[in-house]
Each structure stands twice: as structure tokens, then as C-alpha cells.
């Protein structure tokens, strides 16, 4: 079984994360569509920290003998998912950014044209 102290610290950590995320959404510093993965992470952490039986089952299922390690592994997995998600967001943004620059440059050339000719 997971030591009580670890459960309490993990639950507190997850709760702080959740509150922080909700506050960021409330103050419009974080858009809902990018917050979803974060919320999912926070909720999963909180649930597994409090529901100690489930964590033990999960750890046993994948062959991890020390349940808190399962929590750690799952958390790392969520972080990876988040990072990958952001890489796709950045790729999309940079493609859109390039298109914008191209449109701008073509339009600028058009505007300057009468003076030049």
C-alpha cells in the first residue's frame, strides 16, 4: 500500500495544480481547448492519490511493486502527452505564421506598386 504521507502530498499537489489551472482559465490566460489535457492530468492525479485501492490495483496490473512509482510513471506519461500536444500546436502556429508573412509581403508589394511605377 502507498504510505499515507505520499498520498496526502500527492493529493495536495494535484489539488493545487487543479486550482491553478482553473484560475488561469478564469482570468483568460489559458484557453479551455489547451486546458483540457491539463485538467485531465490534475483530475487523474487527484483521483489516484485519494483512491489508494485503485492505485494499488493499477500498479499490480502493470507489474509495478511499489504503487507510488505507478503514480510517478502515469504523471510522466501525462507530461509527455502534453509536450507532444504543444509540439503540434507550435507546428500549426508556425505554418500559419509563415502564411501570414507571405500574404503580408505580397499585399505590401501591391500597395507600393503605383509609387514605384
Amino acid at each position, binding site marked *: 500500500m502507498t504510505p499515507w504521507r505520499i498520498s496526502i502530498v500527492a493529493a495536495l499537489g494535484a489539488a493545487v495544480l487543479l486550482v491553478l489551472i482553473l484560475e488561469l482559465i478564469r482570468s483568460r490566460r489559458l484557453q479551455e481547448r489547451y486546458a483540457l489535457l491539463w485538467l485531465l492530468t490534475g483530475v487523474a492525479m487527484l483521483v489516484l492519490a485519494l483512491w489508494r485501492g485503485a492505485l494499488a490495483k493499477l500498479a499490480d496490473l502493470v507489474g509495478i511493486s511499489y504503487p507510488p512509482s505507478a503514480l510517478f510513471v502515469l504523471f510522466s506519461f501525462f507530461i509527455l502527452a502534453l509536450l507532444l500536444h504543444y509540439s503540434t500546436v507550435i507546428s500549426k502556429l508556425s*505554418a500559419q505564421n*509563415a502564411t501570414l*508573412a*507571405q500574404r*503580408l*509581403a*505580397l499585399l*505590401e*508589394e501591391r500597395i507600393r506598386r503605383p509609387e*514605384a511605377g
Partner: protein
Amino acid sequence: MGIDIREPLAVVEPSDPRVLGLRRMAIVPAYKEESVISQVIEEIRHADPELEIVVIDDGSPDGTALTASGAGARVIRLPYNLGIGGAMQTGYQYALEHNFDLAVQIDGDGQHDPQDFFRLIVPIVERRADLVIGTRFAGEKFYRGTFTRRIGIRYFARVVSLIIRQRVTDTTSGFRAVNRRGIRLFAADYPHDYPEVESTVLAAKHHLTIAEVPVAMRTRIAGHSSITIARSIYYMIKVSLALFITLFRRYPTLEDQ
């Protein structure tokens, strides 16, 4: 298909009726080429006065744009550096918007000889190809260059030949021309960094006909080559990955009208 390669002497005349009505433009991407750009523009104009010269200034911090417009070229100035692919695509978008029949890429650093223009476009004028690549290898003047560079060029030529099932000898050459079909494709979809190899495959996957014509390459008039060892390695890996992905991608990405 490899037959196209062995036609080093074919040239069309500017007075040829197939060339006379041809609306053609040169896309000249330039980044920090202040010192040579006017010479390049002059050479292009000398080779073919009917070519509309459009310099794409890729966010140069120096006077490249000013010098180019002073030399009489049209200048499209990108607000910041997009890399050669992004700049080139801007040129194709211009060609599409202004309804050009043919676009030729000529580097702003002077390594391509505009005198080869009327040789390069022969397969397009004769309607045998949609994309023509000026190759350094099939010509009478064999291209030298560093050993590693030749290896890289050979490697990509081999891989691309396998993928597109047509023999090509120099897929890294940036001296190339396209007709309307090519302009339409590249305006819509063009790889962003190190675009030459990938765009060749892209064209083939969209069923564009590709031909090669031997041309001379010069060492750059001035400026610095952007090739370092670290970049070469990054280039090889990045482009190899892109090529590998093309095997699993659906084409065509845009409909043919």
C-alpha cells in the same frame, strides 16, 4: 524516362513562337545578398529581357531589398526570415496571382548562370515536362565540390529516384523551372526548409512530369555558403525523415483542375 537527361545542346530561341507569348518570371530568393544582387539581376535581364524578375527578400537586415529595387527588380519583402522554402513559395504565390505561364528559380547569390535559361525551359516549352531541374551532373562540365557534398547529392538522387521511379541525378539543385501546373502546386504546397529534394518528390507524387537538363553551376560570386558540418548532418536527417514520411502520405494534396 532517363532519356531527357542526354539532351545537352537543345536550346529554344527567344524568338520561337512558343516562347514569344509565354509570360515568364524569375523567382530570386535573396538573404543578405546586398553585394551581388544587382549583378544577378543584370545577368538575368541580359539573358532574357522578357523575364519579370521578382526578388524575394527573406527578411534581410542589410540593403538587399533596396539594392534589388534600385536595379529594377520587383521586390517582395518578407517581414522576417522564413527560410528558403517559405521565400520560394511566396514567389510561386506571386506567379499564381499574376497569372504567369512559367516560373524559374534563380538563386540570388549568383551560383546559377541565367544564360542557361533557354536550355532549361526546353522540356517545358516542348510540353514534355511540368518541372525541369537544372542538374550539375549530366552536363559536359562535371560538377566538383567537396567530397561530402557530392556524397550527399548522390545519396538523395538515389533515394528520390527510387521513390519517384524515375532516374534523377541532382535533386538538390535550386535552378529549376515549372509551368502553370507546377506554379499552382508550389503556391499551395511547398516544403519549408531545405525544399529542393522534397519538392521534387512532391511534384512526382502529384503526377507532374519531371525532366533534367544539364547546366553549369558556379561558385557563388560573393557571400558565404550556409553549409557547415552540423547543418549538413541536420539537413541529411531532416530531409531523410521528410522523404520517409512521403511514403505514407496521401497524394495529391490538392485537386487537379
